C-alpha cells in the first residue's frame, strides 16, 4: 500500500520497497497516520522532552490533525473528556513523560469511573534508560494501571500501528474507558517498514459485549407486564450505547415513569411526560421516595452508585430488580438483580420493547406528580423565584433555560452549582449534560467545556462553574485565548466552597472549616486573556447579561454573585435511606 503523506519533508523519509507494499517511516509518523485512520480530528496536548519526536512529526501534519496547546495536562485530558462526551467519539490526548504523564492521572480516574473513551499518548524516556531514574522518568504504566481500562508501553516502533488500533478498539467498545499508551523516545524515532494501518475489531481475551440471553429478556418482560408500580432508572449507558431512540420507544410503550442519574440526564428530554426527574442525594423528591415503594425497578445503564442509592440496606427492598448493563461486573455489585439482562442496551431494549404490553400507569404517575408538587412548593419555588435580595443559583439556571430553550450543552464543575445545574437545567438533546459524576473532580468544568465545544461546534456550550472549582484550572483561559474557541463561562460565585460549607452547616454545627474562599477579580483575569466578561450582583441585570453572554461573538465570562449560604435541597443525608430525603 502506498501512503499519501502530505509534506515533502515527510516524503524524504519514505523509502519505497521494491514491491511497493511498505514504506519506511518513523514510529511518530506511524502514530499520526494511525490517529488519522481512526478519524481523530483534534488532539489536546502539551509537548515536552520525551514526546518531542511526535511533536516534530506533528509539524508536518498540521493540516490533517488539529493540535490544541493546553496550559496543563490535566486541562488537556479534561478537554479530551469533554470532547468525547459531546461528540460520542474517542478523545485524544498527548503528554510528555514524568510530570506530564502524572498530571493526566486525575483525568484518567475521572474518565475511568465515568466510562469516557480516551486514548492518551505519553512520551517516555529511551528504553535503555527505563528504571534508571532518568530525567523525567516515571513509571507511568504502573501509576495509571488502576485508572485505565487498558495501558501499554511501546518500546519498539513496529508495535505502534497494532497497539494504537487495539487502544481505540478497547477505548470505544463495550463499556468505554480511558486507554494510555506510553511510547519510549527510541520507538518514536525508530524507522520501520510500515505496512499501513488496520483497525482492530477482535481481541480474543476481550468480550466487549456479553451475548444477549433471550430467556432473561422474556423474564424481564413478564415482570414488567405484571408490575403495578414499575419504575425506570436510567444512566449514562443509554448515551454510551447511543440507544436514546430505543430507550424512548421502551419508555413510551411501557408508560413507566423514568428517572435519571446525573450521568444519564438528557437521554430523554427534560420535558418528556414520563421523565420524572433526577435520582440521588440531591435528586427530586418523588423519584427518591417512590424508589422504596415501586414493585419493579428497571435499571438501565446505571450502576447504583452510593450517591444514587443512599443507604443500601434500605434501598428498594420491596422491589424486584431488572438490571440492564453491558458490564457483567456491575450486575449484582451493589444491588442484587432479580433478572439480569446482560448486553448493550441498544440490542436489549428493542427486544424488551417488543415483548412488553403497551400500558399507561396513570395513577402511579400521579404519585410522582403529587410529590413533585410538594417539592415545588417546599423547595423549587423559592429557588427559582426567590424573594431574597440576592440571587440564587437556581434562578440563574432557570433564566438560562429560558434563553437557550434547553438546546445548549451545559458543562458543570463540581459542588453546589453542579447539583443545581443538573436539577434545573433543561435538556432537549442527548449529550448535553457534561459533568464529573463519579469522581467529582473540581476543576473539570472549564477544560471539559472547551473540549465539548470542539466536539460539538454547532452547539452553544455553557460552562457553569463555582468560584472554587474555577480557580483549580483557570489556566485554561489561555487555551481559549490561543485557540479562539467560543465557550460561555458562568461563574456562580457564593464566596464559599459551598457544598462542603453546606455539610458543615448541617452536620458539623456550622463549624466552617477552611471553606471561606477568596477570589481574584475574575473579570480582570478574563480581560488579561482578552476574554470579554461582566460581573453582576443585581437581579435586574440577569436576563440582559445572560443574553449578552449568549450572543457575544466568542468566549465570554459572566460572574454572577449569588447568595452566600444557600443550601441544595432536597437532600438524602449520608447514611440515610432514599425515602428519608429531606426537603429542608
Amino acid at each position, binding site marked *: 500500500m502506498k501512503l499519501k503523506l502530505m509534506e515533502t519533508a515527510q516524503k524524504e523519509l519514505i523509502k519505497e520497497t521494491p514491491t511497493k507494499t511498505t514504506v519506511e517511516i518513523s514510529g511518530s509518523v506511524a502514530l499520526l497516520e494511525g490517529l488519522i485512520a481512526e478519524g481523530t480530528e483534534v488532539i489536546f496536548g502539551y509537548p515536552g522532552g520525551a514526546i518531542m519526536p511526535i511533536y516534530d512529526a506533528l509539524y508536518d501534519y498540521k493540516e490533517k490533525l488539529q493540535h490544541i496547546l493546553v496550559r496543563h495536562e490535566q486541562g488537556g485530558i479534561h478537554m479530551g473528556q469533554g470532547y468525547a462526551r459531546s461528540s460520542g467519539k474517542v478523545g485524544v490526548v498527548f503528554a510528555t513523560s514524568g510530570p506530564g504523564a502524572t498530571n493526566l492521572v486525575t483525568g484518567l480516574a475521572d474518565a475511568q469511573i465515568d466510562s469516557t473513551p480516551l486514548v492518551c499518548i505519553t512520551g517516555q524516556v529511551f528504553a535503555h534508560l527505563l528504571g534508571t531514574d532518568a530525567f523525567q522518568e516515571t513509571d507511568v504504566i504502573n501509576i495509571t494501571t488502576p485508572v485505565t481500562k487498558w495501558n501499554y508501553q511501546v518500546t519498539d516502533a513496529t508495535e505502534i500501528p497494532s497497539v494504537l488500533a487495539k487502544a481505540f478498539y478497547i477505548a470505544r467498545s463495550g463499556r468505554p474507558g480511558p486507554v494510555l499508551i506510553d511510547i519510549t523516545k527510541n520507538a518514536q524515532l525508530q524507522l520501520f517498514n510500515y505496512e499501513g494501518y488496520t483497525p482492530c475489531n477482535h481481541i480474543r481475551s476481550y468480550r466487549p459485549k456479553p451475548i444477549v440471553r433471550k430467556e*432473561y429478556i422474556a423474564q424481564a418482560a413478564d415482570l414488567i407486564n405484571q408490575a403495578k408500580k414499575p419504575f425506570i432508572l436510567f444512566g449514562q449507558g443509554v448515551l454510551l450505547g447511543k440507544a436514546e431512540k430505543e430507550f424512548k420507544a421502551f419508555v413510551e410503550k411501557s408508560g413507566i415513569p423514568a428517572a435519571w442519574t446525573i450521568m444519564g440526564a438528557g437521554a430523554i428530554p427534560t420535558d418528556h411526560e414520563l421523565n420524572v426527574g433526577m435520582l440521588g442525594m440531591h435528586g427530586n423528591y418523588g423519584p427518591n421516595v417512590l424508589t422504596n415503594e415501586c414493585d419493579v425497578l428497571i435499571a438501565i445503564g446505571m450502576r447504583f452508585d452510593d450517591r444514587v442509592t443512599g443507604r443500601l440496606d434500605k434501598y428498594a427492598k420491596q422491589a424486584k430488580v431488572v438490571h440492564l448493563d453491558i458490564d457483567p461486573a456491575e450486575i449484582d455489585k451493589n444491588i442484587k438483580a432479580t433478572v439480569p439482562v446482560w448486553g448493550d442496551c441498544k440490542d436489549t431494549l428493542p427486544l424488551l420493547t417488543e415483548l412488553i404490553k403497551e400500558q399507561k400507569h396513570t395513577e402511579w404517575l400521579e404519585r410522582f406528580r403529587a410529590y413533585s408538587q410538594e417539592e415545588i412548593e417546599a423547595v423549587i419555588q423559592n429557588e427559582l423565584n426567590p424573594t431574597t435580595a440576592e440571587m440564587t443559583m437556581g434562578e440563574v439556571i432557570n433564566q438560562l433555560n429560558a434563553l437557550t430553550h434547553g438546546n445548549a450543552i451545559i458543562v458543570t464543575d463540581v459542588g453546589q452549582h453542579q447539583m443545581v445545574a443538573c436539577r434545573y437545567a433543561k435538556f432537549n438533546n442527548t449529550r448535553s449534560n457534561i459533568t464529573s459524576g463519579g469522581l467529582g473532580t473540581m476543576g473539570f468544568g472549564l477544560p471539559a467545556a472547551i473540549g465539548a465545544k470542539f466536539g460539538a461546534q454547532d452547539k452553544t456550550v455553557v460552562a457553569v462553574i463555582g468560584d472554587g472549582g474555577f480557580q483549580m484550572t483557570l489556566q485554561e483561559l489561555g487555551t481559549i485565548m490561543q485557540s479562539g474557541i467560543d465557550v460561555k463561562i458562568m461563574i456562580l460565585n457564593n464566596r464559599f466552597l459551598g457544598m462542603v460549607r453546606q455539610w458543615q452547616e448541617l452536620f458539623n454545627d456550622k463549624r466552617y472549616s477552611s471553606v471561606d474562599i477568596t477570589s481574584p477579580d475574575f473579570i480582570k483575569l478574563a480581560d488579561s486573556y482578552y476574554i470579554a466578561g461582566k460581573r453582576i450582583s443585581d437581579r435586574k441585570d440577569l436576563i440582559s447579561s445572560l443574553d449578552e453572554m449568549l450572543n457575544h461573538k466568542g468566549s465570554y465570562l459572566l460572574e454572577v454573585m449569588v447568595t452566600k449560604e444557600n443550601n441544595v435541597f432536597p437532600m438524602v443525608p449520608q447514611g440515610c435511606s432514599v425515602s428519608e430525603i429531606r426537603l429542608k
Partner: protein
Amino acid sequence: MSTESNKQDFTITVYAENQIGLLNRIAIIFSRRKINIESLNTSPSEIEHIHRFNILIQETEEVVRKLAKQIEKQIEVLKVYYNTNEDIIWQEMALYKVPTDEIAEKVLVERLLREYGARVVVIRKDYTVFETTGHREETDKLIEVLQPYGLIEFVRSARVAIIKASEGFHSKLREFERIEPGQDVIENEYLDKGDKVFTM
C-alpha cells in the same frame, strides 16, 4: 452471623494472555479492597501462550464472585474460575534445610521419609535438603518434626490447583478465538447456579 465466619478458602484460577503488567492489574484488584492474597502462582497452562494464575484467598463467596468478575473484566483475561477446597485437587511444595550431622545422628531418616512422603534433594556434609509436597497441614507437620534438629531454612511454594470438574480450556479457547462468540461461551451464572464458575 458475621461475614467473618463465612470466610473460607477460595482458589481462583485465571486463564490469561502472558502480558507484562497483567500481574499488577490482577493484584491491585485485591489490594484495592484490602484483601490479602494468601498465595499466588503463575505458570504456563495446558495451552501454549496462555498463562494460568492460581490465587488463594480467604473470603466469603459473595466477595469472591465480585472479585472474579472484576478480574475477568481485564482485557487480557480470558476466563476466571473460583473454587472451594472441595472442588479442587491442590498441592504445595516445601523445602527444608537441616544440618546433616544432627539429622544423621538423631533422626530415623528412613521413617521420616516414608511417613511424610519426603524426598532428599541434596545431601552435603554440612546440610541436607528435604522436599515434600502436599496440603498445608502436611508440610507444616514436617516443620514441627525438623524444628528440634535445627531447621536452617524453610520455604513453601504457592498453591497449585487442578479443578476437579474442569474439562480443560481447549474448547473454550476455540470459541474465544472466533470474532462472534458462540452461545456456549456465554454461560450465565443464573442458569448454572450450582456450578461455581463465572464467565461472561
